[in-house]
């Protein structure tokens, strides 16, 4: 099952590696991971998506909570929350008309365009599928999830 975990982490050398290491040690592949600054310059917000057995993930969360650099850790999957993902995509100009109506076009040079789209992960998947049916995609960069309890 899919688990969305939100961690407030101290900005210390190696802190991120230690959290990721606990998941890697169980052989779990991290599906998506975003790390960025918060209002507090001492701390970063980390949002992590992993697929795995509920009990095992719960144990990894408990182990993560023991890491000295972890300020708070919570599983958002089972709580009310909002989650968003951003994608930036470069595509052939044939998709420009459709993209203009469904996303924000950032650049266009007559041959290639770059657009951004944000939404739930499923919406991002759908957007990319639709765009790909209209134009060749030349590069895709997804941000991974940003999430907060609501």
């Amino acid at each position, binding site marked *: 099952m899919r688990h969305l975990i939100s961690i*407030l982490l*101290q900005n*210390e*050398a*190696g802190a991120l*590696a*230690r959290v990721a*290491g606990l998941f890697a*040690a169980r052989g779990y592949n991290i599906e998506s991971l975003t790390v960025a600054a918060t209002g507090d310059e*001492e701390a970063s917000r980390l949002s992590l998506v992993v697929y795995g057995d509920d009990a095992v993930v719960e*144990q990894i969360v*408990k*182990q993560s*909570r*023991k*890491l*000295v*650099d*972890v*300020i*708070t850790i919570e599983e958002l999957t089972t709580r009310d929350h909002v989650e968003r993902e951003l994608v930036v995509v470069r595509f052939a100009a044939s998709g420009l008309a459709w993209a203009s109506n469904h996303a924000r076009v950032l650049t266009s040079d007559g041959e290639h365009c770059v657009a951004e789209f944000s939404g739930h992960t499923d919406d991002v998947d759908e957007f990319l599928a639709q765009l790909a049916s209209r134009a060749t995609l030349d590069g895709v960069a997804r941000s991974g999830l940003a999430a907060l309890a609501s």
Partner: protein
Amino acid sequence: MNAQLDTPGDISPKTHPRAGQALTGADVVVQVLADEGLDVLFGYSGGAILPVYDALFRHNLENPRADGSEPLPLIVPANEQGACFMAAGYARASGKVGAALVTSGPGATNAVTPVRDCTADSIPLVVISGQVPTAAIGTDAFQEAPISTIMGACAKHVFLVTDAGTLEATLRTAFHIARSGRPGPVVVDIPKDVQNTVVTFKGTGQLPVPGYRARLRAIEQTPLSDARCAEFFAALKASSRPLIYAGGGIITDGARDALRDFAHSFGFPVTTTLMGIGGFDTTDPLALHMLGMHGTAYANYAVDDCDFIFALGARFDDRVVGVPGKFAPRARTIAQIDIDPAEIGKVKQADWFHAGTLRTSLERLRAWGIAHGFQADYSAWHEHIAQLKSRHCLNYDRESPLIQPYAVIEAINRITKGHAIISTGVGQHQMWSAQYFDFREPRRWLTSGSMGTMGFGLPAAIGAQFARPDLVVIDIDGDASIRMNIGELETVTTYNLPVKVVVLNNVGDGMVRQWQKLFFKGRFSASDKSLHKKDFVKAAEADGFDWARRLDDPSAIESTIAQFLAFEGPAFLEVMIDPDAGVYPMVGPGACYAEMVTGDFIANRGAAPAAPSPTVASPTGMF
């Protein structure tokens, strides 16, 4: 001996004599070590830690004790693994934080095994490692290794100090983290340029580590409520056969008295894990000694028979539980107290649990039970336990013409009356020691329980002797285990420590051979050492042991061991034991307690197979 500070930061800026002084990072390291109340350090020098070693030399020269001795003597081992196991032995025997100083690269990587060992057994340790200068980190510089990354996966915590301004607070925080909560090792990696940077010493202060401190406060300041106490005793009321299963947490938390009082007040029999040995007097009538894979048969049968099991600072480790679904099959209630919330429900779901400190929780439960007049008649259960203990007692071939290792341990136990510190390597000799010694006090049993690190025994004994110069320290070792850190024999004589080293020599890796006999049809792959030429007695003599002998006559056991233990200085005894002596009882991998094999000399309750059935890797896949 200075007492270590219970609460770091006790030295206020006003009272610290050096507050406001300009010190190098290296001087700051030594000053904080001194402030933490350490009376001995263990370490091996090298390029990247030289500034700290120089600062230590100057500190010892300028601050002699009243008797002229050094305030912070540095004990130099054969290698850094030895240094860190000495510091761990010191910590295990004293309950204080042990400290080791190592250099960068190979010095620090040699510390990885003891650091992991300390995490696994919850031992407080601070390792200070030199690192290449900040600007050289990541360039494959001479003696560079990514210690913060490596140790990050092994230690309770690691700090890489890149700003000399935070060094002082970081060091103090390292000691706090090592000793607080569930203790563990903390590594402080200090680049050489940081050691040489001049900073203003403050004499106080720690890093905030807000998440850690908040969780620690929550654990330490959440007492058991009346309602939870009532739930506990309500569940207990429905029980007629309660049992305590106590782990290393009892020793870590200083909960020996609380456990004894609790068990005596309500009549709980007590079995302990390997790490819990000494947490409950093994000569107490309620004591069942150790449970698990090589636990006593009567402890394991009691676990099978109990209807209420109360886990205290124990983590349902695979060497205890075997098959989780079949552990304590008749227990209607599993109750658990642990300081680490991640241990609760990890292996077995607990019906009643509390994440908190053991001593205070047990005292609270006991007071509540007494105040509310809880009484139960466990006389039938006690009678049952007494029968298990007499029917299924430990025993061995007492008529054998070969020296039986159990007899050697019994002889040492008779002479020391259980008042010695025993350290061990890993394997058969470790299990025999756990089974056949009496342990009346905490911190007298030093063994690598979780990691199972061969070579632990000798350096741990050295460290323990520094912690407890008043006690006899005996390393019971195996011929294979002692080889792993045999260089430390010289450390024993260099510092003229009265450590007693016993090698139970069965000419090979005995435990491995036992498994190969049982599960690999006797193919002794790489476990036989009969072609090895080592003369252990000569080796000990070469390292300066004035008393070094070999015992191979069964009739001389008592007299030889008496002389050995009576010798005032370092002494070394090699005992040629029956190479076929096995460790029994044994709960095989993937088996449950009812299927325990008890060998030819311990009575079995009948459900054990005539011969162990598994011939290939166990269902659990564990060693």
